[in-house]
């Protein structure tokens, strides 16, 4: 295993590499087509470089454990706004998730619909490309349109354009209070309608999820205590046509409910492949009906669907043509080799993406083939 401790060492290691590199942060998100190659770990690239609570800015090395970052933020009453998923329960992986792994997968949880994705909170990156060149883009300030935005490009690039060494993130204050408004017994179609009504209201819903097996539709409200109480009441009134809402107040209880939704822990111990579908919410129920899934969970007001599928089944073949993308998150190595893990792209996008990889990694040694 190669474990560079600085950008210079990383650059040297990449220059010296004679074959493919399998890039690992914590290694808790083995998503994508399996990669053969020498393991390169970011384990030794750790530490918080700068944290200014009054400016909502955090600069951190890529191999830093997410838990260390969260602890530092908590001490100042702040948090990572995009609520990254912890893949360990679902994928049965161990070890320590890193900030680099989150950024490289653009991991974003339920709050994505209210505040944005991981990529929306990234202010700057430092990385080393496939030729060993040390590069930076963006910076540490909130607004920056100086040159092309490679920061967004690096988010969700699964290590295929470069190995991140440092990221600058915008963080937000943690909230004073939270509540979950729950509706019961709705069909998938009605649940999406109810979530759309809530998300289209002025009452700032920060999570909207539906569990068809439990027959429960959840809406999260966060903010100052009096405001949370007020908005929970207004949302309940607004959705009266969908039944009587049950409101659970309190930060701890709400955090627990939404951590389970975020991590899809319901599918953790269950056999079958796990797919993640991103579509516009109103399309979701009809696609689910076609999918042949054994179980589903809706998040993002219906815009994100987690599907538990029979092993080896090709979800995309079941859905036919649809607008959005389906990603295979959990499956055997054989299935992940047989089916494209990521949604096949239109020819122009595929050509552009291929072209970018060829520029940033001309030898094709960074996680080759991980994105298909």
């Amino acid at each position: 295993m190669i474990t560079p401790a600085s950008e210079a060492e990383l650059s040297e290691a990449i220059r010296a590499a004679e074959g493919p590199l399998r890039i690992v942060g914590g290694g808790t998100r083995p998503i994508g087509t399996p990669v053969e190659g020498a393991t390169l770990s970011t384990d030794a690239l750790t530490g918080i470089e700068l944290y200014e609570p009054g400016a909502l800015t955090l600069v951190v090395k890529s191999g830093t454990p997410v838990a260390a970052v969260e602890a530092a933020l908590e001490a100042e009453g702040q948090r990572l706004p995009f609520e990254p998923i912890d893949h360990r329960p679902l994928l049965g992986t161990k070890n320590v998730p890193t900030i680099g792994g989150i950024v490289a997968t653009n991991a974003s949880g339920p709050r994505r619909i209210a505040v944005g994705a991981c990529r929306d909170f990234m202010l700057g990156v430092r990385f080393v490309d496939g030729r060993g060149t040390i590069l930076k883009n963006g910076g540490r300030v909130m607004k920056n349109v100086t040159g092309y935005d490679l920061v967004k490009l690096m988010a969700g690039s699964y290590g295929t354009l470069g190995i991140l060494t440092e990221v600058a993130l915008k963080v937000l204050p943690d909230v004073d209070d939270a509540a979950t408004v729950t509706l019961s017994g709705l069909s998938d179609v009605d649940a999406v309608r109810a979530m759309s009504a809530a998300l289209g209201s002025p009452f700032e819903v920060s999570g909207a999820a539906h569990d068809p097996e439990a027959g429960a539709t959840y809406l999260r409200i966060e903010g100052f205590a009096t405001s949370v109480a007020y908005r929970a009441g207004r949302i309940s009134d607004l959705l009266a046509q969908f039944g009587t809402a049950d409101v659970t107040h309190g930060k701890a209880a709400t955090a627990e409910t939404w951590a389970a939704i975020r991590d899809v822990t319901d599918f953790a111990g269950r056999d079958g492949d796990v797919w993640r579908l991103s579509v516009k919410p109103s399309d979701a129920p009809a696609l689910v009906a076609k999918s042949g899934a054994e179980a589903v969970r809706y998040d993002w007001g219906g815009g994100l669907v987690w599907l538990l599928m029979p092993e080896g089944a090709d979800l995309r073949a079941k859905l036919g043509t649809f607008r959005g993308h389906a990603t295979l998150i959990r499956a055997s190595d054989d299935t992940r080799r047989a089916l494209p893990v990521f949604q096949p792209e239109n020819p122009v996008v595929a050509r552009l993406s291929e072209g970018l990889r060829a520029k940033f990694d001309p030898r094709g040694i960074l996680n080759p083939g991980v994105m298909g």
Partner: protein
Amino acid sequence: MQMPDPDAAILSRKARIVERLQSVLPTGAVIHERPEVRAYECDALTAYKCPPLCAVLPTSTEEVSAVLKICHEEGVPVVPRGAGTSLAGGALPTADAVLLGTARLNAVIETSYDDRYIRVQSGRTNLSVTGAVEADGFFYAPDPSSQLACAIAGNIAMNSGGAHCLKYGVTTNNLLGVTMVMMDGTVTEIGGAHLDAGGLDLLGVICGSEGQLGVVTEATLRILRKPEGARPVLMGYDSNEVAGQVVSDIIKAGVLPVAIEFMDRPCIEATEAFAKAGYPMCEALLIVEVEGSEAEIDEQLGLIKQIASKHNPVELREAKDADEAGRIWLGRKSAFGAMGQINDYMCLDGTIPVSELPYVLRRIGEMSKAYGLGVGNVFHAGDGNMHPLILYDANTPGELEKCEAFGADILKLCVEVGGCLTGEHGVGIEKRDLMGVQYTRADLAAQMAVKDVFDPAWLLNPAKVFPLEASAAHRVAAA
């Protein structure tokens, strides 16, 4: 400002190029006579002007594709243009370029309140996007001050921001998808009404690419429900340091205002003389706005006023009604106009870490004395996006150059303290030659590699963003 020499071979083929363009566009959509073409000779950076070879005004993606195909075959550069409000010369033509205007691409294609998006043609103005959904209680969040005029196409190209982006983000955070025409005429969809790309985030790099990667013809934008209400509070302080501390304390306290605006003394004085908004005469003035129901607003403003009071404000005024709110915003909204009454001005938009605010304002004050040019500061303090307005007299020989040198020094200072050259206006030609202050050659080469992939012939919006000597090798390879 150095621009490449126009290609004489293209100039000599003008008649044939115009004829070919006319063959694929409706009558009147190709503008090639000298006086009419001059309408497109510059954007809002009026110090630089150059009429294009001709201008075209297509009405559909298909027409844009046909135009680009012809230009690609002919090897003619193309400069896309929205409403021409760029302050960076982003839409400045070259003499050998076809200017592609989006003015006739202004339809609303689809609106969905259930899925909270609107799809429009890219030439539609920013304000009229909100106009299309306002009656139903929705709005499009990014709100540049130029929103009455500027087009979504320009907003996407510059990744424009606005006064309310502290809460709602800038264009890139509100853009879901585009239809884009590549330089060779190929049409592609990127993103859509669903969230987040499955593969590489191409949308993320297209937004903010200043018209150099492709021509955007349609856009899917996120729309939001309007808040129940909003209310500002105004506070005055007798030092920039203290006002800067107040901003930091408000943010740390966990309140997330929609806007925190800052004006310094020169700007307050100019504004008072012009708009008579009743602002206190002091060193630094803050306008902080929050949103929600009446009770929620009371709670947030209560907290903000508590923080403000701790720092001994010379004035602390909360709007009691819409009228008073209007008056609090009046001065801020007339600030640019007020400064324009005094003199010509150049507007910069470097961004700095909020903690560096007092130091940077002090240094700007010192430089202002050294250069002998006045400067007023009015800006989005919550996110550190400065807007120093340097006053100069365009009729005094040498003053523009002096003003530009002063501006460059301010931007270098922004980078030095950990910030950047431009927070929302873009690089264009204005900041092109300063890019080396913020980025190494390798950093710039990485950005230009993206251009190589999207526009291998380097025909789209030439001579912008990258210093000419840095891009020379790429342009030669492309030719």
